[in-house]
Protein backbone atom coordinates (compact mmCIF):
# COMPACT_ATOMS: atom_id res chain seq x y z
CA UNK A 1 0.00 0.00 0.00
CA UNK A 2 1.55 3.31 -1.06
CA UNK A 3 1.23 6.63 0.81
CA UNK A 4 -1.75 7.80 -1.26
CA UNK A 5 -3.66 4.57 -0.64
CA UNK A 6 -2.84 4.78 3.06
CA UNK A 7 -4.23 8.32 3.33
CA UNK A 8 -7.32 7.37 1.33
CA UNK A 9 -7.93 4.43 3.65
CA UNK A 10 -7.67 6.75 6.67
CA UNK A 11 -10.18 9.10 5.04
CA UNK A 12 -12.53 6.21 4.23
CA UNK A 13 -12.44 5.03 7.83
CA UNK A 14 -13.21 8.50 9.21
CA UNK A 15 -15.95 9.10 6.62
CA UNK A 16 -17.44 5.70 7.35
CA UNK A 17 -17.58 6.42 11.09
CA UNK A 18 -19.41 9.68 10.36
CA UNK A 19 -21.74 7.93 7.91
CA UNK A 20 -22.65 5.19 10.41
CA UNK A 21 -23.32 7.78 13.12
CA UNK A 22 -25.51 9.62 10.62
CA UNK A 23 -27.56 6.55 9.70
CA UNK A 24 -28.11 5.87 13.40
CA UNK A 25 -29.11 9.50 13.98
CA UNK A 26 -31.76 9.26 11.21
CA UNK A 27 -33.75 7.00 13.51
CA UNK A 28 -32.45 8.46 16.80
CA UNK A 29 -32.25 12.19 16.02
CA UNK A 30 -31.99 13.30 19.66
CA UNK A 31 -29.19 10.97 20.75
CA UNK A 32 -26.54 13.29 22.23
CA UNK A 33 -23.71 10.73 22.18
CA UNK A 34 -24.23 10.04 18.49
CA UNK A 35 -24.45 13.75 17.71
CA UNK A 36 -21.13 14.33 19.48
CA UNK A 37 -19.53 11.37 17.72
CA UNK A 38 -20.73 12.59 14.32
CA UNK A 39 -19.27 16.04 14.96
CA UNK A 40 -15.87 14.58 15.84
CA UNK A 41 -15.74 12.17 12.89
CA UNK A 42 -16.79 14.85 10.40
CA UNK A 43 -14.06 17.18 11.73
CA UNK A 44 -11.44 14.42 11.42
CA UNK A 45 -12.56 13.53 7.91
CA UNK A 46 -12.55 17.18 6.81
CA UNK A 47 -8.93 17.52 7.88
CA UNK A 48 -7.90 14.34 6.09
CA UNK A 49 -9.86 15.27 2.97
CA UNK A 50 -8.05 18.60 2.78
CA UNK A 51 -4.71 16.81 3.20
CA UNK A 52 -5.58 14.33 0.44
CA UNK A 53 -6.85 17.05 -1.90
CA UNK A 54 -3.62 19.05 -1.55
CA UNK A 55 -1.32 16.06 -1.96
CA UNK A 56 -3.10 13.91 -4.53
CA UNK A 57 -5.90 15.78 -6.25
CA UNK A 58 -9.65 16.27 -6.41
CA UNK A 59 -12.11 13.95 -4.70
CA UNK A 60 -15.15 15.83 -5.97
CA UNK A 61 -15.78 18.54 -8.55
CA UNK A 62 -16.13 20.96 -5.64
CA UNK A 63 -12.52 20.53 -4.55
CA UNK A 64 -10.19 23.46 -5.09
CA UNK A 65 -7.60 22.86 -7.78
CA UNK A 66 -4.52 24.77 -8.90
CA UNK A 67 -2.25 24.38 -11.90
CA UNK A 68 -2.87 24.59 -15.62
CA UNK A 69 -4.45 21.16 -16.16
CA UNK A 70 -7.94 19.90 -15.13
CA UNK A 71 -6.91 17.51 -12.39
CA UNK A 72 -10.25 15.67 -12.22
CA UNK A 73 -9.62 13.66 -15.40
CA UNK A 74 -6.39 12.27 -14.00
CA UNK A 75 -6.15 8.78 -12.60
CA UNK A 76 -6.15 6.68 -10.69
CA UNK A 77 -9.88 6.03 -10.81
CA UNK A 78 -11.39 4.09 -7.90
CA UNK A 79 -11.82 0.81 -9.81
CA UNK A 80 -8.32 0.86 -11.35
CA UNK A 81 -5.83 -1.84 -10.47
CA UNK A 82 -2.65 0.02 -11.52
Amino acid at each position, binding site marked *: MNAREKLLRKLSAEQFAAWEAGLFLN*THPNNTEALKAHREYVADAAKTRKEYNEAYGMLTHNCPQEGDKWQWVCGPWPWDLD
Partner: protein
Amino acid sequence: MFVYEKKLQYPIKIKTPNAAMAKFIIAQYGGPSGEAGAAMRYLSQRFVMPYNELKATLTDIGTEELSHLEMVGTIVYQLTKGLSEEELMKQGFSEYFVEHTVGVYPQSAAGDPFTAATLNSKGDLFGDLYEDLGAEQKARVTYDNILRMVDDPDVRDPIKFLREREIVHYQRFAECVRIAQEKMDCRNFYMYNPSFDGVKR
Protein backbone atom coordinates in the same frame (compact mmCIF):
# COMPACT_ATOMS: atom_id res chain seq x y z
CA MET B 1 -28.99 15.70 -5.75
CA PHE B 2 -26.14 13.30 -6.27
CA VAL B 3 -22.47 14.09 -5.94
CA TYR B 4 -19.75 11.65 -6.86
CA GLU B 5 -16.71 11.15 -4.69
CA LYS B 6 -13.70 9.68 -6.48
CA LYS B 7 -13.10 6.79 -4.12
CA LEU B 8 -14.63 3.46 -3.20
CA GLN B 9 -16.51 3.24 0.09
CA TYR B 10 -14.19 0.29 0.92
CA PRO B 11 -10.94 -0.55 -0.90
CA ILE B 12 -10.77 -3.34 -3.48
CA LYS B 13 -7.48 -4.71 -4.88
CA ILE B 14 -7.85 -8.14 -6.49
CA LYS B 15 -4.52 -9.68 -7.50
CA THR B 16 -5.81 -12.83 -9.21
CA PRO B 17 -8.39 -12.67 -12.00
CA ASN B 18 -11.15 -15.30 -12.00
CA ALA B 19 -13.94 -15.05 -14.54
CA ALA B 20 -15.81 -18.02 -13.06
CA MET B 21 -16.16 -16.05 -9.83
CA ALA B 22 -17.23 -12.90 -11.68
CA LYS B 23 -20.03 -14.91 -13.29
CA PHE B 24 -21.89 -15.34 -9.99
CA ILE B 25 -20.73 -12.20 -8.16
CA ILE B 26 -22.40 -10.17 -10.92
CA ALA B 27 -25.69 -11.24 -9.27
CA GLN B 28 -25.13 -8.40 -6.81
CA TYR B 29 -24.63 -5.92 -9.64
CA GLY B 30 -27.83 -6.46 -11.63
CA GLY B 31 -29.62 -9.42 -10.07
CA PRO B 32 -32.86 -9.59 -8.06
CA SER B 33 -31.13 -9.17 -4.69
CA GLY B 34 -28.45 -6.86 -6.04
CA GLU B 35 -27.36 -3.31 -5.34
CA ALA B 36 -28.89 -1.68 -8.44
CA GLY B 37 -32.30 -2.97 -7.40
CA ALA B 38 -31.79 -1.91 -3.80
CA ALA B 39 -30.82 1.63 -4.82
CA MET B 40 -33.81 1.95 -7.18
CA ARG B 41 -36.18 0.56 -4.56
CA TYR B 42 -35.20 2.88 -1.71
CA LEU B 43 -34.66 5.99 -3.82
CA SER B 44 -38.10 5.46 -5.37
CA GLN B 45 -39.99 4.62 -2.16
CA ARG B 46 -38.73 7.71 -0.35
CA PHE B 47 -40.95 10.18 -2.24
CA VAL B 48 -44.24 9.25 -0.56
CA MET B 49 -42.84 8.44 2.87
CA PRO B 50 -44.80 10.45 5.46
CA TYR B 51 -42.15 10.94 8.15
CA ASN B 52 -38.79 12.74 8.05
CA GLU B 53 -36.86 9.90 9.71
CA LEU B 54 -38.03 7.57 6.95
CA LYS B 55 -37.28 10.03 4.13
CA ALA B 56 -33.76 10.42 5.51
CA THR B 57 -33.17 6.69 6.00
CA LEU B 58 -34.41 5.71 2.53
CA THR B 59 -32.43 8.51 0.88
CA ASP B 60 -29.22 7.64 2.73
CA ILE B 61 -29.42 3.87 2.41
CA GLY B 62 -30.41 4.23 -1.25
CA THR B 63 -27.36 6.41 -1.79
CA GLU B 64 -25.10 3.95 -0.01
CA GLU B 65 -26.41 1.17 -2.27
CA LEU B 66 -25.11 3.13 -5.27
CA SER B 67 -21.67 3.08 -3.62
CA HIS B 68 -22.06 -0.67 -3.20
CA LEU B 69 -23.09 -1.02 -6.85
CA GLU B 70 -19.80 0.65 -7.71
CA MET B 71 -17.93 -1.81 -5.49
CA VAL B 72 -19.52 -4.88 -7.06
CA GLY B 73 -18.84 -3.48 -10.54
CA THR B 74 -15.23 -2.95 -9.52
CA ILE B 75 -14.97 -6.57 -8.30
CA VAL B 76 -16.36 -7.91 -11.59
CA TYR B 77 -14.06 -5.59 -13.58
CA GLN B 78 -10.93 -6.61 -11.65
CA LEU B 79 -11.81 -10.32 -11.80
CA THR B 80 -11.98 -10.28 -15.59
CA LYS B 81 -9.25 -7.78 -16.45
CA GLY B 82 -6.32 -9.01 -18.51
CA LEU B 83 -7.59 -12.54 -19.22
CA SER B 84 -7.22 -13.98 -22.72
CA GLU B 85 -10.13 -15.36 -24.75
CA GLU B 86 -8.86 -18.89 -24.05
CA GLU B 87 -8.77 -18.33 -20.29
CA LEU B 88 -12.22 -16.72 -20.33
CA MET B 89 -13.68 -19.62 -22.32
CA LYS B 90 -12.06 -22.15 -20.00
CA GLN B 91 -13.56 -20.35 -16.99
CA GLY B 92 -17.09 -20.59 -18.42
CA PHE B 93 -17.35 -16.97 -19.48
CA SER B 94 -18.14 -17.46 -23.20
CA GLU B 95 -21.84 -16.55 -23.19
CA TYR B 96 -21.23 -13.32 -21.30
CA PHE B 97 -18.14 -12.49 -23.39
CA VAL B 98 -19.98 -12.80 -26.71
CA GLU B 99 -22.51 -10.11 -25.67
CA HIS B 100 -20.42 -7.90 -23.39
CA THR B 101 -16.74 -8.76 -23.85
CA VAL B 102 -15.39 -7.91 -20.38
CA GLY B 103 -17.63 -4.89 -20.02
CA VAL B 104 -19.72 -4.68 -16.85
CA TYR B 105 -23.41 -5.24 -17.63
CA PRO B 106 -26.25 -5.21 -15.09
CA GLN B 107 -27.61 -8.75 -15.11
CA SER B 108 -28.33 -11.62 -12.76
CA ALA B 109 -25.95 -14.58 -12.39
CA ALA B 110 -28.19 -16.49 -14.81
CA GLY B 111 -27.93 -13.72 -17.43
CA ASP B 112 -31.31 -12.02 -16.99
CA PRO B 113 -31.00 -8.28 -17.64
CA PHE B 114 -31.61 -5.99 -14.69
CA THR B 115 -35.31 -5.46 -14.10
CA ALA B 116 -37.52 -3.51 -11.72
CA ALA B 117 -39.88 -6.52 -11.77
CA THR B 118 -38.18 -7.90 -8.64
CA LEU B 119 -38.62 -4.74 -6.61
CA ASN B 120 -41.62 -2.66 -5.64
CA SER B 121 -42.41 0.85 -4.61
CA LYS B 122 -45.83 0.04 -3.19
CA GLY B 123 -46.74 3.53 -1.99
CA ASP B 124 -47.88 2.09 1.34
CA LEU B 125 -46.04 2.75 4.57
CA PHE B 126 -45.80 -0.81 5.89
CA GLY B 127 -45.88 -2.42 2.45
CA ASP B 128 -42.70 -0.58 1.57
CA LEU B 129 -40.91 -0.93 4.92
CA TYR B 130 -41.49 -4.69 5.16
CA GLU B 131 -40.30 -5.15 1.58
CA ASP B 132 -37.12 -3.32 2.59
CA LEU B 133 -36.51 -5.64 5.55
CA GLY B 134 -36.93 -8.62 3.22
CA ALA B 135 -34.69 -7.07 0.58
CA GLU B 136 -31.82 -6.60 3.04
CA GLN B 137 -32.07 -10.19 4.22
CA LYS B 138 -32.10 -11.51 0.66
CA ALA B 139 -29.03 -9.45 -0.16
CA ARG B 140 -27.33 -10.77 2.98
CA VAL B 141 -28.11 -14.36 1.94
CA THR B 142 -26.72 -13.74 -1.54
CA TYR B 143 -23.46 -12.45 -0.04
CA ASP B 144 -23.41 -15.49 2.28
CA ASN B 145 -23.74 -17.72 -0.78
CA ILE B 146 -20.94 -15.85 -2.54
CA LEU B 147 -18.70 -16.33 0.50
CA ARG B 148 -19.45 -20.08 0.46
CA MET B 149 -17.98 -20.26 -3.03
CA VAL B 150 -15.02 -17.87 -2.78
CA ASP B 151 -11.63 -18.58 -1.16
CA ASP B 152 -9.61 -15.61 -2.42
CA PRO B 153 -9.09 -13.22 0.54
CA ASP B 154 -8.87 -10.19 -1.83
CA VAL B 155 -12.45 -10.94 -2.89
CA ARG B 156 -13.77 -12.17 0.48
CA ASP B 157 -12.73 -8.93 2.20
CA PRO B 158 -14.96 -6.44 0.33
CA ILE B 159 -17.76 -9.04 0.10
CA LYS B 160 -17.73 -9.42 3.89
CA PHE B 161 -17.98 -5.63 4.22
CA LEU B 162 -20.94 -5.54 1.84
CA ARG B 163 -22.61 -8.40 3.73
CA GLU B 164 -22.26 -6.59 7.06
CA ARG B 165 -23.77 -3.44 5.58
CA GLU B 166 -26.91 -5.41 4.65
CA ILE B 167 -27.30 -6.44 8.28
CA VAL B 168 -26.90 -2.84 9.47
CA HIS B 169 -29.40 -1.63 6.87
CA TYR B 170 -31.85 -4.26 8.09
CA GLN B 171 -31.42 -2.85 11.60
CA ARG B 172 -32.13 0.69 10.41
CA PHE B 173 -35.28 -0.39 8.54
CA ALA B 174 -36.46 -2.25 11.65
CA GLU B 175 -36.13 1.03 13.52
CA CYS B 176 -38.18 2.69 10.77
CA VAL B 177 -40.95 0.13 11.39
CA ARG B 178 -40.79 0.99 15.10
CA ILE B 179 -41.07 4.71 14.31
CA ALA B 180 -43.97 4.05 11.93
CA GLN B 181 -45.80 2.00 14.57
CA GLU B 182 -45.23 4.70 17.19
CA LYS B 183 -46.82 7.28 14.93
CA MET B 184 -49.78 5.08 14.04
CA ASP B 185 -52.68 3.93 16.20
CA CYS B 186 -51.70 0.72 17.98
CA ARG B 187 -55.33 -0.46 17.80
CA ASN B 188 -54.97 -0.81 14.05
CA PHE B 189 -51.78 -0.03 12.16
CA TYR B 190 -53.59 -0.73 8.90
CA MET B 191 -56.43 1.71 9.56
CA TYR B 192 -55.12 3.97 6.84
CA ASN B 193 -52.09 4.47 4.63
CA PRO B 194 -50.23 7.63 5.67
CA SER B 195 -48.36 7.57 2.35
CA PHE B 196 -51.68 8.33 0.63
CA ASP B 197 -54.74 8.90 2.81
CA GLY B 198 -55.19 12.45 3.99
CA VAL B 199 -52.13 13.65 2.08
CA LYS B 200 -52.69 17.25 1.04
CA ARG B 201 -50.59 19.32 -1.37
